[in-house]
């Protein structure tokens, strides 16, 4: 255990957030980048180090907790969301970060995942999606594409994958975002946004596992393909992508359409302007995944897909307690012990 000295938050650097434990991910693992971005962003969040709590499940991704010099619990497979709910409900002042994998969050922890989104605790939920079970050495996961050949699917998986952002929106998530390990700046931006947002901030991080599922997200980071295959969302900005930023997305009724707006001499303002608070549109954007609209393939969205604050569980719980207490007052233990119907024997 490291010798820990108390330092004022203002002087903190990323070093203050790295624990004394050796990081044991494979060389080239995307998890390194995520760790680095978190450690880069944290000193500037204005939160004292002792207020941070990491709760993770089980998986390569979940080892994350051991590498952060904050409070943390590496728990059991799939249950991080449930444990984090208890942490946040019992101490709403803590800054709670859940770290989970695609299997941890969406397979064994699927039930907790959807209920966490619905309950909307004020915490951050990072899913390192590598579309594979890595710690158990390479089986298909609930985000692996259909036909995926793995050790447990030598003839190809016959399962349809989850689309995590669509799932989260369906489960009433109030903040849905996506970023990727190979774009540090983008990840830092999303992490900051997640932290600022009051509610359960769901951050899906595309994470490369060079050992069991290499280059699964290559298309979104490789120079050759990135501009065509990925679209980076910004609130209040038009949906534009393409090699020369020439393509835009528009809505034709309720159907998204790709237009070459430069060729058509259209102003970008005529395109679909991203509105993070518009759930209907967020639902459509989240489906830029495997849905073809009128036969057309759409680029994968990155950034904040949806963010609309609504009351958070921990605050509602605290407020209810305050309200009932104000109305009824605290009951003394003696009166609880006696109840309201007693008799005496002399």
């Amino acid at each position: 255990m490291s010798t820990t000295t108390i330092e004022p938050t203002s002087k903190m650097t990323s070093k203050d957030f790295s624990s004394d434990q050796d990081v044991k991910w494979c060389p080239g693992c995307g998890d390194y980048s995520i760790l680095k971005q978190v450690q880069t962003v944290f000193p500037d969040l204005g939160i004292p180090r002792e207020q941070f709590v990491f709760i993770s499940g089980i998986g390569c991704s979940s080892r994350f907790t051991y590498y952060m010099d904050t409070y943390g619990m590496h728990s059991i497979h799939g249950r991080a969301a449930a444990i984090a709910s208890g942490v946040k409900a019992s101490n709403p002042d803590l800054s709670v970060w859940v770290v989970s994998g695609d299997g941890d969050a969406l397979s064994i922890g699927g039930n907790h995942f959807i209920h966490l989104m619905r309950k909307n605790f004020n915490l951050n939920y990072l899913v390192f999606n590598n579309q594979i079970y890595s710690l158990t050495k390479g089986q298909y996961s609930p985000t692996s594409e259909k036909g995926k050949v793995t050790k447990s699917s030598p003839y190809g998986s016959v399962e349809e994958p989850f689309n995590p952002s669509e799932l989260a929106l369906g489960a009433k998530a109030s903040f849905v975002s996506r970023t990727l390990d190979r774009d540090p700046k983008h990840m830092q931006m999303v992490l900051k946004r997640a932290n600022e947002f009051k509610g359960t901030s769901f951050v899906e991080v595309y994470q490369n596992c060079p050992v069991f599922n290499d280059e699964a997200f290559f298309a979104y980071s490789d120079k050759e393909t990135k501009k065509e295959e990925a679209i980076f969302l910004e609130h209040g900005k038009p949906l534009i992508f393409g090699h020369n930023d020439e393509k835009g997305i528009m809505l034709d009724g309720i159907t998204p359409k790709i237009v070459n707006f430069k060729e058509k001499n259209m102003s970008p303002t005529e395109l679909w302007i991203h509105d993070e608070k518009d759930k209907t549109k967020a639902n459509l954007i989240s489906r830029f995944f495997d849905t073809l609209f009128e036969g057309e393939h759409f680029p994968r969205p990155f950034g904040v897909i949806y963010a609309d604050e609504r009351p958070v569980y921990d605050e509602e719980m605290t407020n209810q307690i305050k309200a009932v207490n104000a109305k009824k007052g605290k009951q003394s233990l003696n009166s609880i012990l006696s109840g309201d119907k007693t008799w005496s024997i002399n």
Partner: protein
Amino acid sequence: METLNNEVSQKANVIESESMVVRFSGDSGDGMQLTGMQFTDTAAMLGNDLSTFPDYPSEIRAPIGTIAGVSGFQVNFGSKEIFTPGDLYDVLVAMNAAALKVDLPRLKKGGVIIANSAGFDKKNLGLANYPPDVNPLEDGSLDNYIVHKMDITKLTKNCLTDSGLGTKEVERSKNMFVLGLLFWMFDKSMDSTIKFITEKFAKKPDIANANIKTLNAGWDYGDNTEIFNTRFKVKAAKLPTGIYRNITGNHATAIGLIAAAEKSGLPLFLGSYPITPATDILHELSKYKANGVKTFQAEDEIAGICSAIGASYTGNLAITTTSGPGMALKTEAIGLATILEIPLVIVNVQRGGPSTGLPTKTEQADLLMAMYGRHGESSIPVIAAASPSDCFNADYEACRIAVEHMTPVILLTDGYIANGSEPWRFPTEDKLKPITVKFLDKPNGAEGVLLPYKRDEKLVRPWIKPGTAGLEHRIGGLEKQDETGNVSYDALNHEKMVHLRAAKIEKIADYIPLAKADTGKDKAKLLVLGWGSTYGAIKTAVRECIAEGGDVAHVHLHNINPFPKNLGEVLKAYDKILIPEMNSGQLLQLIRAKYLVPAIGLSKVQGLPFTTTELKAKIVELLK
């Protein structure tokens, strides 16, 4: 003592009795549980000792009139000490044919039957599977009993003709008629029930008035009709002086948690998922928002315990409550709490199993699961409650051990004592044992190094709250290195940690009461060794046997892991040991294995508690 405000009727004979057992039986929709509870509250407040046994089906409303839909409430009240709801009843209220069919076998010969004849029409008789044209109220088959049959449905209707209430509401009031009649029969004041009705229906005065009117009509019916020529009088019991309340086991469990939270100064957090017969603890605790109690109804039992683990981690007194099937779901998380070495109380209100089993019936079959139901070497304390009010003590003790010894603790109660009730001479705040909690606030190792798994003389590690500056550290389910708590795969370290965790639990034996005879002498021919809810039945049986000259004693185990330190010695003082259990012999295995004594088991796995008669028969046989 309150005095009865109704003079004993001149017309009827009054029979004095030391104790009486009444069974209210009817359709699930007939309100028998409420009727029984009201009768019980009154008896308790008038000074009787008592014990109750609600016995209801798992279907909320099985088809009306069927055997499956019969709901019963049994109360044994007396002027002497009462420890069980009674084997056989003196009075049976049968609201329909099915109720009579189900409950007649346990009515004493010569006992009283109060039957609602409206529930014995052709349709009801058919639903209760009586052969065509057979009506037990008419055919002389009940000649050995005192039968009072009356059309309670019609009598209620007649008394409420002008009430302006609909047929349904009128129909629903008929249990009040029964209650009024029984209050007359047992010469008990109706004041408490009238107060209850007035409060319950404060916003619906029509209904309150109708219920009170019907209650009075029941009383008057007893007083005015010639058919009732006998009344019973059960005097107040000579209980130890003090102030009493009536309490069910689940209610006592809930209060025990609140008391432990107050005494330890910790916030209380309950993470739970509804399941019979444990749900009432969640219901009860949810009422105490004004006291800051946090109840979290999780999405399943796993989330229930995991949220509690999260709350314990932040420094709350954290609880999860459940029953058998939910317990099965929690096992992995209990293992996590065991290796994290954080306090947690897991309440298992046992019911009949395996699987969904008998949801509303009682059993003690989760003992070995509590002891061993986790993977890996993972010993944790197990405590069992002996009676409804003892749920308070056991639960308080579970909390104390959990926080003072930094460990998950399993508390076993069961459906029988969870729903059953008894008078309780409740403690006042100042009489409760202190619970000492200390959070680490600065590094505990040399040179300012934090050692989260450094142990004190009890082998207990410090509790450290997130938010404490300078003590940031990580814990987890991977094996911990001794003292530092860092992940360690070292073979010998693992063995050491397994031994340390086990030794920590064994050491708790230094901080719990020794075993001693509850009834009878420290040395005798036969020892009846019990645990959990069999307490009342064993105590009654052993007392009666001793009164009849039997050389027998009763020791009851409250702590099952670890056992009291002197248990081995205690056992040696008896020639024979009998262990009655509502399972196939689970404590029996533990005792035989640990103490190498030839204990004899008595097993009952019928979803029902032991009767005193059953236990006495076995004791007498072994004393021969």
